[in-house]
């Protein structure tokens, strides 16, 4: 479905690219610079600004191509265009953390970045953690510690926890709480989440 989507919007994309290019030329957007530094400008391969772009996202190790409007967030591209629904849309403004994914191994809120900004980057979502039937230690720890009720925030909590452990911010309960503070849990499972992160960090009994 994603591929046919990309094809159909690809048509729209090319028209918009042309329109966008023309608009900039008419408004003289790059002209002053070209006049000031003709040699530099001639060497510079600055692609014309465009309202859509073809983007390649390496999602959980698989290259996925998608044509998106520039205003589409990484979260919406993953969920609505690529069918990767592990990242959740809670607040859609960077406050709840349910959309947390890893980009090049770093945890980010996918609702606060545009898909076009993540072109050619590695994206890891909760779907990419388990190896076959074998759960990732953080997933196993969340189950062992019963670290959720409704589960809506859980995929974001787990992605954040994976990064938090890798960053080494698990020295104490207080440190875990501070460094997991970008992920809210409306059910209030924080004590169990902290225990799960602690367990997984220790590599203890899972």
């Amino acid at each position: 479905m994603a591929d046919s989507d990309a094809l159909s919007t690809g048509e729209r994309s090319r028209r918009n690219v042309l329109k966008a290019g023309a608009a900039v030329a008419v408004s003289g957007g790059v002209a002053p610079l070209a006049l000031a530094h003709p040699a530099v400008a001639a060497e510079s391969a600055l692609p014309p600004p465009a309202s859509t772009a073809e983007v390649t996202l390496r999602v959980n190790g698989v290259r996925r191509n998608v044509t998106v409007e520039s205003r589409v967030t990484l979260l919406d591209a993953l969920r609505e265009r690529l069918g990767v629904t592990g990242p959740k849309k809670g607040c859609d403004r960077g406050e709840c953390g349910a959309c947390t994914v890893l980009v090049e191994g770093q945890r980010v809120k996918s609702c606060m970045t545009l898909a076009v900004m993540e072109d050619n980057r590695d994206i890891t979502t909760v779907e990419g953690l388990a190896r076959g039937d074998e759960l990732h230690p953080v997933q196993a720890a969340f189950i062992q510690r019963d670290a959720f009720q409704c589960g809506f925030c859980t995929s974001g909590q787990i992605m954040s926890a994976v990064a938090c452990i890798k960053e080494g911010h698990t020295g104490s309960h207080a440190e875990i709480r501070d460094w997991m503070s970008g992920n809210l849990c409306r059910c209030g499972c924080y004590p169990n989440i902290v225990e799960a992160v602690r367990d997984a960090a220790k590599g203890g009994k899972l």
Partner: protein
Amino acid sequence: MKLFDYARTSRVSDAVGLVAGHPGGAFIGGGTELTNLMKDGVLAPDLVVDVGALALADIGVRKGQLLIGATARMGDVAEHPVVRERFPVISEALLASASPQVRNRATIGGNLMQRTRCWYYRDVGSACNKREPGSGCPAIGGQNRWHAIHGGSDHCIAVHPSDLAVSLTALDATVLTLGPDGRRSIPIGDFYRLPGSTPDQETALRHGELITAVEIPESGPAAGSRYLKLRDRATFEFAVVSVAAALIQAGGVVTDVRLAFGGIATRPWRSAGAEEALRGHPLTQATIAAAGRALVDGAQPREHNAFKVELVQRALADILEDFGGRK
């Protein structure tokens, strides 16, 4: 979110040229602020130029100055060994900001350019002189618990939200920029404007001018500097009141002191009066109280934020305790 054109370039001059030549153009760094403002309709640029690929992310000391590139990420700066050891107030201010996910993405330049958290500014259904000049300021007679007691005007009392900017104000940082007219060095004290009758003009930047770095002089006070942030919850929240303090003592008296405050003013607030009350004196209950009084001299509290007058004095006394002062 309104549709916009997007461009990404690895050349600083191209980025500046694109935005400068386009009245509705804007830069995007980490995106953690602009995406929200665009979703809410507070800002609606028709051209967004991504500065993420510019080679402006270096952090290092050169000729007695710490240079932090504008696209360095908050988290990387906070954990940089030189920043932690010789400019701790910057590291502490950054670690007290936002959440780990945001700090992984938000840039130093973007942090300095973030907009106020005033809820009337953020709500396009409300009047706001900052967002829509001339429409009025509902905060002055409305819900103003978070608002300024210093630096306000009849047009705006919104607080500047950046912790980083408060720490840089204490350390006399300079903002380096590149604009269509070339390079500029802007002392941080001149970078943020008081709202006056034009609260929509927040900084000294001209359209298309890009922050390329901030420069902070090394000093004894910087090496022992501290940040204290008081907020409504333990973490991941903006300041109700904050203090950046850098001071050194010799022979039992304060010989050099810089104090800047967040959460209480329309821009990061340096208090010359509070510094004067301490300079040349020992840190005693009396001198600390005098500094607190000087700090709130001329304050204009509103209906819901009068508590800040007391709270910021207590915050100052608290942080001075860390330097050996007694409350």
